[in-house]
């Protein structure tokens, strides 16, 4: 947390700049008074959209602080792995479920904050989509063979998840991608709180969540 705090502040500052700059820019254009009524209305809509971005950043900063300080924590709720990726496919559409073996579908993830976990996975899906905008995105579920028992959720291009060779030139996806770093930091904090691990490969983001004891 001590190392993460300055980084989070730096990312927050960086991400605040863009909507603030856009708001200031449109305000100056309006101040010049050289645009017609229709353009004015369009600018106002765009400005409102940017204020929405600012609100999201404020919420993400608050969430990050809450998860890292322990104020937010997983709830004593549980969710099946299949249910989780079904909801992810809905919220982060278009996202195809590429593979979900029956035993993985049945896996129960205990003690989760479902909404936050879904948001975290959604942020990772957004990262994959930005890095590979041309490729249709998918999610797959698997159960690693060795204990401790866990379930793996992989998000990436459907072709890559189906076992096709990587086409990104081997460059690992970066979690420091500009513009959405705070959302990814919150995702990392949520996953940490769920004792999950997060790794990236050339074409996918892999989250491993612990399961309830032997069933």
């Amino acid at each position, binding site marked *: 947390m001590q190392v993460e705090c300055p980084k989070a502040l730096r990312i927050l500052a*960086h991400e605040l*700049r*863009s909507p*603030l700059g856009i708001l200031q820019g449109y305000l*100056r*254009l309006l101040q010049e008074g050289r645009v017609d009524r229709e353009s004015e209305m369009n600018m106002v809509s765009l400005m409102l959209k940017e204020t929405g971005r600012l609100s999201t950043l404020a919420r993400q900063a608050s969430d990050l602080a809450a998860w890292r300080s322990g104020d937010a924590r997983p709830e004593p709720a549980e969710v099946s792995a299949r249910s989780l990726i079904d909801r992810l496919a809905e919220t982060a559409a278009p996202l195809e479920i590429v593979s979900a073996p029956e035993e993985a579908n049945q896996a129960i993830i205990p003690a989760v904050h479902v909404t936050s976990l879904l948001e975290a996975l959604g942020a990772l899906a957004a*990262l994959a989509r*930005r890095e590979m905008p041309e490729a249709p995105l998918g999610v797959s579920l698997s159960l690693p063979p060795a204990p401790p028992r866990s379930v793996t959720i992989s998000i990436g291009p459907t072709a890559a998840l189906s076992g096709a060779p990587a086409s990104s030139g081997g460059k690992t996806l970066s979690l420091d991608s500009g513009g959405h770093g705070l959302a990814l930091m919150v995702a990392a904090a949520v996953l940490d709180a769920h004792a999950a691990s997060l790794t990236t490969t050339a074409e996918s983001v892999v989250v491993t969540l612990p399961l309830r004891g032997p069933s």
Partner: protein
Amino acid sequence: MTPARLAIVDDDPAFVGYLKTLLTSRGYEVASHPSGAKLLEALKRPPLPDVVLLDVLMPGMNGLETLRAAREAAPGLQVVMLSGNQVPATIVDAVRAGAVDYVVKPDDPDGLGEAALEGAIRNALEKRTLTTEVARLRAQVTDEPDGIQVCWGTSPAMRPVVTMVDRVADSDVTVLLSGESGVGKEVIARELHRRSPRRSKNFVKVNCAALPADLLESEMFGHERGAFTGAEATRIGKFEYAHEGTILLDEIGEMPAALQAKLLHVLQDNAVTKVGSNRLVPVDVRVIAATNRPLDQMIRAGQFREDLYYRLQVIEIRVPALRERRSEILPLVEFFLIKYAASYGRPVTRPSARMRDALLAYTWPGNVRELENVVKRFVILQDEALAIADLERARVEPLPAPSAAPAAPPAAAPSVPAANDGSTSGRGSSEATNLPALARQAALSAEREAIQQALESFRWNRRKAAKLLGVSYKTLLNKMKECGISGSDQPASDAH
């Protein structure tokens, strides 16, 4: 004027939208690409953007990677890097990779960021213009057959000239070039030759005013041995020398009448007869004639053959004076700077804003030739203060612009001191080198010419002429006396 084309490369559609709105409102034509890969695709299709605004942090191919690939695909591309913050290492990398500037994305309430961005775009556009211009001029100076592009012709006044050169260069049609002395008629003649199928053959210039009639005939058509005293050997003339090439008959208006008749036959028969011979020698020559005199008026005055005029004037191209195409002054200065800096081993010292102003303010009565001499002198002496002083002095005491009307020889040399390029003869008398005397002589000559023209325009009605000249009737009479103009034998009528 075509607006400059900008390309924004950024993965943030909201920022792109704002920047597009801003820059479109500033008169630019703006395209956008969401990634470096998309920009590289776009670079394969013309037209290329004039300036690219490239975000540093982007998913996939980042800004620096995109910059390197884009500069490889289009080496002359001007790229301004955009970033949310200034990271020194990235700035250094970007500049090393060929970025023209590095600008922080606008994010301040006072608009300083926008001003910085607009400044960077302007600089990039200026750099692009200069780079293109220098490459063009270099190609011209080094005389590479495939790289030559003339440095004149960019002004609206020259557009008809350029169009006509484009249309007739590859034909054999005879061309008459008219215009004041020094406007570049020979340059255009050479361009016509260079762009013709005859380009690999000779381009031969004959100055019809430089030689007496008998010598000119021998010079043009050649002579047989013993044709005249001193003709010790048979010699081919310029027409034969120009066989399958192009001949430029400069100052055709000065050609003696007898020679005009002979030239007419040559043009009709495509054959020459040497002095002292009766044998016709076939020649295949494209003829370009040039004059600073109004041949139509000379025909009326019986000084030029009408049939020859119509032979020569199949296509007439009037080359405007430099003062009619001021936008070409600075490009011509740049051209001559590079040319003479290379010739004389001097540095290319570009003129300051003050000197540029002086160059633009001057009327250039001697046209491009005068400008060339001023730049040559500037390159040799490397003394801008002297050049400016000369230009300003010449502007204050202007000489009359050379007229296309038949007139007495110029009374004075161009008022801007010119480096001696061998084209002008020296003057021996102390009066001729006395500037005030020269100025006075030039002023008198100009006044005399203006008064005569005004009087002739109004059939020697002195009242009307005085009104045209903006002086009183009495002043005109005094001036006529001073200039030695006598109206006593004219059909004068001073009625209002």
